[in-house]
């Protein structure tokens, strides 16, 4: 077996060492994320303000291939094409809404990472409120029942009272 590297055996106090390990782990975690983002300079617009706008639009659009990434984060071929379309349209002076509408018309609601509020999506958007309401209702119902119902379970039945008397008299087992 190889001896541990000198740096690990060195004089660094344990806390510092742990910190370093943590940092290294974080760096490892961050690496793939950085790779997945748009890094190809050929794709970027020359005007940084326009590029920033294109990125913001792209972050709102779903990659139809990977489905859980935005087109800005995805490496899929189709995502690259859609990024290019977004940039072309931004460079041509279209507004954010116009660019989004262009893709929404072709790919439907699913392409929007933030689905629009309409009858089909009321349940989706309303779910947090519904869940909160149901939970609150349940808590209130339970509390009311506790408050109104007399503690019937704590009262002894006739048979139990008889047995208790027997025990108290020392005759019970």
């Amino acid at each position, binding site marked *: 077996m190889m001896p541990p590297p000198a740096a690990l055996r060195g004089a660094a106090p344990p806390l510092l060492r742990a910190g370093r390990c943590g940092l290294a782990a974080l760096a490892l975690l961050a690496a793939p994320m950085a790779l997945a983002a748009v890094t190809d300079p050929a794709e970027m617009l020359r005007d940084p303000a326009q590029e920033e706008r294109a990125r913001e639009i792209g972050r709102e659009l779903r990659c*139809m*291939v990977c489905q859980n990434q935005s087109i800005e984060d995805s490496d899929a071929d189709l995502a690259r094409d859609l990024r290019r379309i977004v940039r072309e349209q931004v460079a041509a002076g279209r507004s954010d809404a116009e660019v989004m509408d262009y893709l*929404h018309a*072709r790919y*439907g609601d*699913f392409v929007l990472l933030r689905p629009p509020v309409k009858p089909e999506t009321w349940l989706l958007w309303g779910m947090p409120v519904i869940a909160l309401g149901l939970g609150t209702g349940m808590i209130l119902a339970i509390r009311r029942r506790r408050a109104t119902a007399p503690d019937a379970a704590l009262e002894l039945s006739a048979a139990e009272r008889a047995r208790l008397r027997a025990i108290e008299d020392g005759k019970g087992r």
Partner: protein
Amino acid sequence: MSPADGREATAPATPAPTTPAPTTPAPRAAASRRRLLLLAPFAAAAAAGAGFYAMLRGLGTGGYDPKGVPSALIGQAAPDFTLPPLEGADRPGLAAADLRGQGRPVLVNFFASWCVPCLIEHPQLTRLAREGVPLFGIAYKDKPADSLAFLRRHGTPYIRLGVDQPGRVAIDWGLYGVPETYLIDRQGIIRWRWAGPLTEDTLTQELQPLLRRYA
């Protein structure tokens, strides 16, 4: 004597009941309700099992696709486009105008030589072509030489064939992968989209009824 007391008397003598006997006026109703509640987890598990079974079956037959996305273009006119022909394929190029004026519904099929499901669905396309269904092909993001080799090897079921190497026309159709097949009625309206390979079942259960309906 209440029913509860009767039960208490016949029960084996225990040192001290851990749960006091119910003294409510309708203990039997409460008990049966509690028993029903005990069954609830089993009922939930059975329902979930049935649901999962249906999902698995659907995955097997292709009737259920968790990644499937409905097309935004259903009920809309096919997008306008003009695509050049594939050199050497002996078929004219494809434009939006070609989809109308056939006097019957037509199919537009996006394919690529690099796409394995396209190979899987190819016998079904051949069958449709043999049945006389007007079938138009669009080679998506494929090198023309590769498309040509693919069609030479497996046959060309298309009456017209466009080449969309940049994949821009495909985006106008809302395509998100190959193969995808669209049914366009006589007025040029998109009526149906199938994302994935056409299978025998798709043909008999979905496509052929639609072809009859829009004929």
